[in-house]
Each structure stands twice: as C-alpha cells, then as structure tokens.
C-alpha cells in the first residue's frame, strides 16, 4: 500500500507541474490585472498547435519550436490585451463575457484550421523512457519539471530584480500609487498579459507532444489551474506552485480510495472547502472587505 501511495504521489506531482505552468500565467494576470482569464486554457492549447506547426513546417528542432510558440503566444497576448481587455478594465463581468467569447472563437477556429482530430508530435524526449522504481516516465516528464522550475526561477528573478518586474509588482499592489511614481499601467498590463500568454504557450508546447494535441486539451487543466490559484492564494506565485502540485497530487491519491469517476469532484470539493474556510488561500493575504 505504501508503494502505491508513493507512486501515485509521484504521478500526481508530474501532472501537477503542468497545472503549475498554467497556474503561473493565470496568477500573474489575476495578481496584476485582477482579471480572471478563463481563456487561458485555449491559449495553452494554441501553444501546442503552434509548437506542432513550427516543428513540422519550419524547423525540426523541438526547443526552437517551443521558443517560437512562446513568441507567437506573446504576440497574440499583446493583441488581445490591447484590443479587448484594455477597454474592459474594472468591468469584471464584461471581462468574463469577453473571455468566454474568446474561447468560442479560438477553440472553434482551431477546429476549422486543423480539423477535429488530434495531432501527434513525438520529438526524441518523448520516446525515451526513464524508470523510477516500478513507474515509467518519459524524458519529457522530467523536461517539464525542469522547465517549470526554470520558469519559476526566471519569473522570480524578473519580478524582484528588474525594473519592469518591480513595476508589475507595484501595480498589482496599488495601481494608483504606481501611477503616482511614474509607472505606465498600460505598459505593465500589456507586458503582464504577454508574459502570461507566453507561459501558456510554453505549457501547451510541452504537454502537447507528451500526449496529444487537440482542441480541448486545455479545458480541464484550466479548471484545475483555476482551483490551484484559488487554493494557493489569488495573486501569489508560491501559491500557484503549491496549489498546482497539491491538486495534481490530491487527484492522484484520491484514485486509491474513491471511485475514479469522482476524481474531479475531489478537486472541486477541495476548492469549495478552501473558499468557505479560507477564501484568500494558503499564501494569500486577507484583505478586509474583499472576501
């Protein structure tokens, strides 16, 4: 039994790292812009398709395809922020409506362009297997963990050691004060959105080849990542990491004790529980009047 628990723990951590990658982008957008971007899942999916496109049509190099995918998503993010979300600042409900509209357009647009069948992409890192005890993983699994760790580090350094990053943190803490000290909120918001979309693209480019690239590939991870950032604390990067890993591990362990058709229910149950008991999350800061 103990080995089963350990094995599921590791399985869960692997999947959890994907949730972390998605959650990082979402928590950035929420923390800085106070926008709940439901469209993050489809952007993640586009990242996978972009990686496939670049890999097969432009360069046979997987790392290069990933970078191009991230760049494409950053560009898309800039366009979306400028055209859509900038005009809807402070209007939570219309932001949600807009992101729902985006989901329809992007998801069905992808089906129009690539068809409904799943695409396969198998770079070398996906075919090479690694054994961990009785469990078998691909090199790609470890690549994902490594990349996530790298992304977190880079993000941390960016947010704390650079001017732009500090500007982002300042804007997230107090938008008006940030303006007073000379920070251009528009620039900050656009940059935030671009970085978040690039992270989404990175996630899709990493996950797609591991399994399959298909139009719904971001839907479930988005909901899990949403749960992750709430459980971890909206606006908290360490919260996103703990939340993402935690959810992956929780759903994995749950298959040991409850019928597997309720695996999702466990995650949403944990989400509801956290919201009722401690809505500001594990690492979040309680703001009076906001909960």
């Amino acid at each position, binding site marked *: 039994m103990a080995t089963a628990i350990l094995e599921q723990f590791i399985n869960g951590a692997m999947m959890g790292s994907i949730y972390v990658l998605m959650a990082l982008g979402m928590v950035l957008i929420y923390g800085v812009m106070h926008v*709940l971007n439901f469209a993050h899942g489809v952007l993640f999916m586009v990242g996978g398709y972009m990686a496939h496109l670049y890999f097969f049509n432009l360069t046979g190099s997987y790392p290069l395809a990933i970078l191009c995918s991230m760049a494409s998503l950053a560009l898309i993010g800039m366009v979306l922020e400028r055209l*859509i979300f900038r*005009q*809807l600042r402070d*209007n*939570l*409900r*219309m*932001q*949600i*409506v*807009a992101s*729902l*509209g*985006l*989901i*329809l*357009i*992007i998801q*069905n*647009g992808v*089906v*129009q362009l690539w068809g409904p069948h799943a695409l396969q992409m198998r770079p070398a890192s996906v075919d090479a297997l690694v054994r961990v005890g009785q469990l078998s993983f691909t090199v790609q699994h470890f690549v994902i963990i490594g990349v996530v760790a790298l992304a977190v580090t880079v993000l941390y350094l960016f947010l704390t050691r650079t001017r732009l990053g500090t500007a982002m943190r300042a804007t997230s803490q107090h938008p008006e004060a940030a303006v007073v000290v000379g920070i251009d909120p528009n620039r900050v918001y656009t940059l935030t959105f671009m970085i978040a979309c690039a992270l989404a693209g990175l996630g899709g480019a990493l996950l797609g080849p591991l399994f399959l690239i298909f139009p719904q590939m971001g839907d479930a991870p988005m*909901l899990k990542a*949403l*749960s992750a950032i*709430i459980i971890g604390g*909206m606006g908290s990067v360490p919260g996103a990491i703990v939340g993402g890993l935690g959810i992956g591990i929780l759903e994995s362990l749950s298959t040991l004790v409850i*019928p597997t*058709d*309720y695996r*999702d*229910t466990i995650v*949403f*149950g944990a*989400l*509801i529980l956290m*919201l*009722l008991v401690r*809505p500001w999350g594990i690492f979040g800061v309680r703001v009076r*009047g*906001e*909960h």
Partner: protein
Amino acid sequence: MKLSLSAIAGLALFVLGALAPLIFGSQPYILYVLTLALCYAIPAIGMNLLYGYTGLVSLGHMGFAGVGAYTTAVLMKDFGVPFVPSLLAGAGAAGLIGLVVGIPCLRLRSHFFIVVTLAVGMIMYTLFNNLDALTGGAEGLPGIPRPEGFAIGAFEVEFRSLTGFYLLVFTVTALVFLLQYVLVRSDFGRSLSSVRQDESLAAARGVNVFAHKLFAFVLSAAIAGVGGAMKVLFLRAAAPLSFELQESINLIMMLILGGAGYLIGPIIGAITFVALPEFLRVASELRLIFFGFVLLLLARFAPRGICGLTEAAYTKLSNREKAVVAHT
C-alpha cells in the same frame, strides 16, 4: 405608466407569443424552435433575478435546472405523479439545493462566488452523470412522458402535440415572468437593486444584504429547476450534458445578449440565442465563431444587450429623460 417602451414591448411579446401557434401554424419548425427557446427563457429569467437585479454571477446555474429536470422526470416517469405536483417538486428540490449551496457560499465576494458556483455546477454535473440508478446516468433517461391532457367541457386540452406543449410552456413562462415582475416592482426588488449597486451602502441603510441575496439565489435556483423540467418534458429525454458547464455559460450569455436587468431581457436573449444558430445552420462550423464575436462586441460596445441598445436608441430618438427602475 413608468416605462412605456418596456410595457409596450412586453405586451407585444405576450400577444405574439400567445398567437404563435396560429402565426406559425404552417411552419412547425419555427414553433419548435420557439418552444425550445422558452424552455431556456425560464432559467434565464431566474438568472436575471440573480444577476440582472442582484448582481451575482453564477456559472453553475444549469446544475439547478438539472435538479429540477431529473426530479420532475423521475416522478412522472417512474412514479406516475401528475404534472403539476411533479413540477412543483422539481422546483422545490432545486430551491432546496440552492438553499444548501447559498447559505455557506453567498458571503463570498465577486470572483470567489463566481468560482464556487462553477465548482458546484461541475459537481452537480458529475452526480447526474455518475448516479446511473437515479438519473439514468450518461446514457440518458429516455421515455419521459408528456403531461396528461384534460377536458374542459367539450374542449380537449392535450400536451402531446407541438402546439399543445408550446402553449403549456408559454403559460409557465408567463407565470414565471409575472413572478419576476411582481418581485422586481416590490420593495424587496428595490432593495435587491440597492444590493447590486453598492452592498456596503445598502447594509448601512439597514438592508439585510445576506437575506436578500439568499432569497434571490434560492428563487432563481427554483425557477431554473422549472426551466430544466420543462426542457426535458419537451425533449422527452434527459441527458447530463444538457446541464454541464457550457450550458451554464450559455445561460449567462443569452441573458447578457438580451439585456440583464431588463424584465424582458431574458426572453429576448433566449429567443435570439436559440433562434440564431438555427437560422445559421447552413454555416454550422462557423456559427460558434460568429457567436464568439458577438460576445466580444457585446462586452465591448453593448454590455446592456439588445434591450439596452434599443433603449439607448429610443432615448436618443425621443430625447426624453426616463425614470428607470432597476439599473445604473
């Protein structure tokens, strides 16, 4: 008459609706689409109470519709309970679940409330899908009977035909609309609006914010239950996928499309939302993309929906100041 434009529009809709079987007698397909639209209009009215007048976004509301739907369906199909008690039981069950969900969750603010309703909706969908013995599960529940007809003197009323059922849904929708009207125009309705506009201020003025929110939530859940029941009675089959996340999202979208906070907003929204794809069937793959763009345009330029645009145009044209009851 305070809102003459709205009153005219409402009356016109009522008359047209009542006469629809005559107007579209030779085109049963249009009548069919209208019936389906009304089945969505009912939960949309409930949503209007919750979102349009109280300001709460619920992304799992079709879950309550599902509770009402399955309760009514199982009672009528497996236990032979007649229509009216079954429908009331469905509404009651949905309202009860609304109470159970609302009490702990309504104290959460905006973002958090939205997410918790999303999670609740997903859990309800999973239950509909997994509890095979109770709901028929993922394979669906076929063979749901239509309500029994009755006779008034020599006049036969039946609900098996399209016309018969249309008139039934129309009646139910009209009753729910009346309920909405009475509520919105009452003092309670005004307090609800004050809660939507500024909670702290309303509380400072002595409004029991929580009680108001809870009442609105429970009532909107019960109304959604009625809508769900009518829909599965119409289709004569129930399926868990009819009550999943995308359907809840559609509910909000049709309300916003029609105009949240307007009495006839949900009805306009439901009819447009259901009718539009039917007319766009020729471009079936593209209609969802088209609809996505409609939403973007709505969010950016017309957050008040069709009713809002109409009102703005009317105001511009008539250049009059209007005393508007329920929105900022």
